[in-house]
Structure formats: structure tokens, C-alpha cells
């Protein structure tokens, strides 16, 4: 057990800090629409040009080929610098790319990975359906093989930023007769193909906030060359990176939240006074949150340690995910108690109220808290299904 970083690590940290200091975009990040897309792609491109876009990506795909420890250092410095999260690119960077790296063929890797890393494209995730959310494996969007194409018919829903994405990772049913986990394929879908229609779905944060979509597929012809892994093996392709999503993909967010909390502590000190804070209910809750965010960092370090030791990023990552998703909500909630009745106001520049409302998604997206607890109960504790 040690927290010693090597001289190379420290040099890397200094280099990252210096670059971020000079290159982090100033001014607020647009939170929706084409303005957000342009902002996120440009910031990703700047990171790529600076050599920071894929710290732990293999060099053959344009990354630096460094260890998870360096990735962690980069995220720590990124959080400290106050750099904005290029959230639109999350699916591409943290889901599609690792999946293609793990299970894609050479042509798929060569075509897609550089585009994702350079900030040329945005991806969305076509997983959930109107009748299949937590029971994802029961999905019914149908794909039939016709020559060298899949012909897709059906619908996906709650698709974040489908209207801003160029590509989509799409789960389709290719064998309706097989057991539900055995008849699914994982395909790369070009969002400009004929037969794709979008219905915007507004989210609860503020009037007219277009984030979700329902996506309809009518005889959409996707080349078979775009299937990742084997036909009907798509469930295992999707699962191959789920542990990644639940473990390290949120590392940057986990570290960033410690900074968010300290802004709240400062705000509370200013409004309530240092002395009053200690035994005040808000001060007591903030102290609990401080301890919990310290633990998030310790858990992140533990995940990196296990990963470096060759341990699988498996069901134990669900412990982190389940904890962190609820912690985000508790952290966002306390902002309103500190601000008081002015929290009824929704200002244009809004560091607290929209993010609070937005935090209701954290216990739903990427597996609800209930599903996470099933996984922990069954795979960590060995309880019966």
C-alpha cells in the first residue's frame, strides 16, 4: 500500500498542468444544441493536437499508450484546472471506442478510432427501447440480413443527443428464435442513413431542453461490415465494456466532483459563517459529503490499483457506480439548502439549479440504482436471483 508517484509520474503531472493552464477554454460551455457540439468537438480537437486526448489509448490508434495511473493523473489535473467536460463525446470516447478496440476488426478500428479521438465525430447509444429499459436483453428492434446488409426496423428511446451525433452503437435482434441474450447483434449505425427519423424528447431540467430522442428505424440498411463481433454475439460485445463504463469511464467526473463540493463549502462558509457551520445541519451534511468525496478518490485509486494488478474491472465496479451516482445527487441537493429561496430562480448562467435537476439522471442512466444493487447482491455477495 503506497501513494508514491514516480519521478516520471510527477514530470507527467507538471507537463499536464502546464498545458491545461495555457489551453483550457475560457467562458462557459453551451449546454445544448449545435453550439454545444461545436464547443465539445473543438475542445477535444485541442486536446488531441496537444497530445492529451488519449493518454491511455494505444499508440497505434493515436493515443499515448500510457498506464491507467497516468490517465488518473491527467484527470486529476484536468479537474483542478476547471476544464469543461466534453460530455457530448462521452459515448464515443468511453463506450464505442473501447468496444471497437476490444471487439472490432482492423477496418473498423482504422476508420473509427482516429475520428473519435480527434474530435471529428459524436456518437450516441441505441440501446434502450420503449419496452426494454432495465430488461435490455429483451430488446425487439429487428434486423434481417439481406445480402451484405442488415435491414433494421424498430425504435430506440431516451437516446441522448442522437440529434447531434454522427454515429450510433446500435443493439438489434438478429435471431428472434434464440434465447434473448443469444440473438442480439452490435452494429455501427451511420445516423445519416435513409429511414432514420428522430422525435425530440425534452428533459426535466428547463423548458425546451432537447437532450433525449426517440429514434425510429424503417428499413434502414446498415452494411454487414459494420457489425462488431459476430452476428448474434452482440450481448457479449456490449458487456465486454460495461465494466469499463462502470469503473474507469467516470473517473474524470468522480475527480471533478470533489472540486464542485468545495465550491459549495466555500459558499456555505460565506453565507453561514465558519463558526456556525460546524454544528449546523448543513455543515454536518457538508462534512459527510467531504468524507464521501475523499472516499470516491480512494475508491478510484483502488480501482486503478486492482486494474494494474491484472484484476478484472468486474462487478466490484458496481459498488463505485452505485455509491457515486447517489452521492452526486446528495451533493447537488445541498446547493439548494445553501442558496435558500433564491434557488427558485433559474439564471442564465446556472452553476447549481440545472445541475441539481440534471442529477436525477445519475441513478437511472447506465443501469439504474436498482439494477446496480441486483448486480452487487448477486455477483459480489452471491445472493440468489
Amino acid at each position, binding site marked *: *500500500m*503506497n*501513494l*508514491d*508517484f514516480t519521478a516520471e*509520474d510527477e514530470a507527467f503531472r507538471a507537463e499536464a498542468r502546464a498545458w491545461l493552464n495555457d489551453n483550457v477554454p475560457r467562458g462557459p460551455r453551451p449546454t445544448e444544441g449545435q453550439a454545444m457540439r461545436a464547443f465539445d468537438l473543438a475542445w477535444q480537437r485541442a486536446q488531441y493536437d496537444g497530445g492529451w486526448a488519449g493518454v491511455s489509448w494505444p499508440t497505434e490508434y493515436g493515443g499515448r499508450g500510457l498506464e491507467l*495511473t497516468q490517465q*488518473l493523473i491527467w484527470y486529476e489535473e484536468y479537474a*483542478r484546472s476547471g476544464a469543461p467536460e466534453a460530455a457530448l463525446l462521452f459515448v464515443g470516447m468511453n463506450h464505442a471506442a473501447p468496444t471497437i478496440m476490444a471487439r472490432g476488426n482492423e477496418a473498423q478500428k482504422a476508420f473509427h478510432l482516429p475520428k473519435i479521438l480527434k474530435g471529428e465525430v459524436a456518437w450516441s447509444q441505441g440501446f434502450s427501447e420503449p419496452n426494454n429499459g432495465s430488461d435490455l436483453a429483451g430488446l425487439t428492434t429487428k434486423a434481417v440480413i439481406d445480402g451484405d446488409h442488415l435491414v433494421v426496423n424498430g425504435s430506440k428511446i431516451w437516446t441522448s443527443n442522437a440529434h447531434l451525433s454522427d454515429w450510433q452503437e446500435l443493439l438489434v435482434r438478429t435471431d428472434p428464435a434464440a434465447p434473448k441474450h443469444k440473438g442480439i447483434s452490435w452494429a455501427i449505425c451511420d445516423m445519416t442513413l435513409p429511414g432514420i427519423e428522430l422525435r425530440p424528447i425534452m428533459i426535466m431540467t428547463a423548458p425546451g431542453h432537447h437532450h433525449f430522442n426517440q429514434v425510429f428505424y424503417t428499413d434502414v440498411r446498415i452494411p454487414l461490415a459494420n457489425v462488431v463481433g459476430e452476428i448474434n454475439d452482440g450481448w457479449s460485445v456490449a458487456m465486454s465494456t460495461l465494466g469499463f463504463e462502470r469503473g474507469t469511464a467516470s473517473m474524470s467526473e468522480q475527480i471533478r466532483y*470533489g*472540486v464542485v463540493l*468545495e465550491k459549495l*463549502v466555500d459558499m456555505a462558509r460565506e453565507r453561514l459563517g*465558519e463558526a456556525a*457551520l*460546524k*454544528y449546523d445541519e448543513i*455543515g*454536518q451534511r*457538508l*462534512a*459527510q459529503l*467531504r*468524507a*464521501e468525496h*475523499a*472516499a470516491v*478518490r*480512494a*475508491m478510484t*485509486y*483502488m480501482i*486503478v*490499483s*486492482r486494474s*494494474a*494488478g491484472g484484476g478484472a474491472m468486474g462487478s*466490484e465496479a458496481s*459498488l*463505485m457506480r*452505485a*455509491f457515486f451516482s447517489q452521492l452526486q445527487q446528495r451533493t447537488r441537493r445541498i446547493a439548494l439548502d445553501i442558496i435558500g429561496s433564491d434557488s427558485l430562480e433559474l439564471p442564465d448562467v446556472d452553476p447549481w439549479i440545472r445541475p441539481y435537476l440534471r442529477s436525477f439522471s445519475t441513478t437511472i442512466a447506465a443501469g439504474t440504482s*436498482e439494477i*446496480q*444493487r*441486483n448486480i*452487487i*447482491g*448477486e455477483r*459480489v*455477495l*452471491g*445472493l*440468489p*436471483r
Partner: protein
Amino acid sequence: MNLLPNPEQVQILDAARSFLSAEAPVERLRPQHGQIGNHDARLWPELAELGFLGLGLAEAHGGVGLGLPEEILLYRELGRQLISPAILGLTLAALLAARSDDPALLNAIVSGEARIGLATPRGAVTLGPVSSGAFHLIEAREAAWAVAWTDDGAALFRTEDFGAAEDILCMDSHLTLERGRLEACEPAIWISAADGDLPRRAQVLIAAYATGLAEAARDMAADYAKIRQQFGKPIGSFQAVKHRCADMAILAEVAWCQTVFAAVMVQNGGPKATYHAGAAKLLATDAALKNAAQNIQVHGAFGFTADSDAHLYLKRAHVMDFLGGDLRSQKAALIGLAAAL
């Protein structure tokens, strides 16, 4: 950076686990439900022989020359087996004796002969070169010495310093509890927090012990949920029970990760150690209290009986909460510190 135990640390962990599960199974506390006092003191000479009583002491002081990372591995196992918290008196008194150069006392501790209790403040006290105030003495009835500490520092007293101590039945009834009082008393040894990091070390050791409690309660609940059947199925297949157990697993993981982080920070020294030690104590006692309560609920009416071990974890968790300052005072301290990002 690596938070996993190295091979030497794994050996220590395995040795502690196999010794304690063989020599101190939790069942030892079951038949004589009542105030049995410091029964575990019989283990001290054997623990001494295995090197566990001097784990964090320098070799020059008769110790093993390791530190807090190794000690937390031991303390987690001590918590799992509900070993008398008097062990903490031994660990802290050894550090005090080492720093004040008292070889006779050191030798008595490291050999397992000495009995040392704990003295915890009842309300506000003055702890320093001249100490006063009301205390609870835990596991001190047969001890010659008692250790007390606050954020200001740590002190070793003779148990007779506390006057005619009054026996009280302890809520955790396997432990002896007395009320005592210091009147302008000079401790045998006093080390201020500025000269040493004893209070911080105590926080982290308690955190490790409390994590052990939280883990043992989690395991007991999960094991029971696998075998207890209702409505024709194991109760662990119902989400209401399964999710309760999952929450226990989350709290235990949170507590352990922060405890490891804090142990390394305190061992390395530096300005953020107090912050992380406080966070570890807070999270681990919180996990121990919550998991112990949930474990009783998972066991149903049986969990409410003295025949079940479930109540033992709850009561010990409350003892650990009050040692070194309860959750409320931990939180007040933590919010008063500078950020440790």
C-alpha cells in the same frame, strides 16, 4: 501508487486472520451473555509472540518496524472478530512509551504482559500536562494503565489516577465500564498532537476496526439471506433484502478504501493526513453502525435475540463511534479543515 497490500502485507493479513479465527471465534462471546470483562487479554501474549503488538513500533523499541498500513490490516481482522478494544490501549501506549523512552513499560506491552484500558472523555475535559475532567474507563478494571486522547494529544495515566472509579453496566456488556475523574492530574506520559500523530493514528486504527465490524455484519446478513427461506424462496432473492445487503457492501467498500488511503497519508505525514484520517473514522463508524442495524433487520426476530451475534456488532459499533469523538464531533472537525483536493 498502489493501494493493494504487497506480498509481505498479505502474509501479515493471512497470519492475523488464521490466528484470530482459530483462537477467537465470535462464538466465544455467545454462551456467557453478560459482563465478562477483558477475556481477550488471554490472547495478548500469543499476539505478542506473533509480533502483532509491536507491528508499528521501531525495531529499536522491540517492535517489527512496520507502520499504519500493516496495522490496519490487523485491526480490520480484530474488528471482524470483536476483539476487546483494549488492544487499542496497547497499541497507543506502546507508541507513547516509545516516544517517552520508557523501556520497562514498552517491554511489558510488547511481551503481552501489560493490561492497558481506554479512557474516553465524558463531555468537555482538559487533556495535557495537567489533566482534569470526567471520563469513562473501558476495559480498565484489571489494568494498571489507561490511555486517553483528544485532538490536542495523547496521555497515559495510572488507573488509580481516576479516583474511586464506579462500575457501570456497559451497553456493550462484554466490556467493563467505569466512571472516573481526573483532578489536576499529571499523566505518566503526555505527547501533544504537535509532537506526534497519535490522535490521527488512533482515528485510522478505529476506522480499520469499524470497517471489520461493517464487513462482518454484511457477511452475516448475506449468509443468512442465502439460507433463510420464506414464501418458498431464500429471502436474499427478494429485492427488498438483496438491496439492503448491497447497500451494506457499498458502505463497507467505501469505509475500507478511505481507511487504506488515510493509513498511507498518515504514515507519510503531511498536511492532508488529518483530513483523511477524520474522513476514514467518520465513514467507517457510520458504515459499522448502519450495517449492524441492517443486519439485525435482515435476521428478523432472531436478530433481536441475545442468541444471535447481530447485536454484538451494533453495540461495538457504538463504542467505536464514541472512541476519539462521535460522528457529530468528527463532522464538526472535518468541515473546519482546509480542503484536501
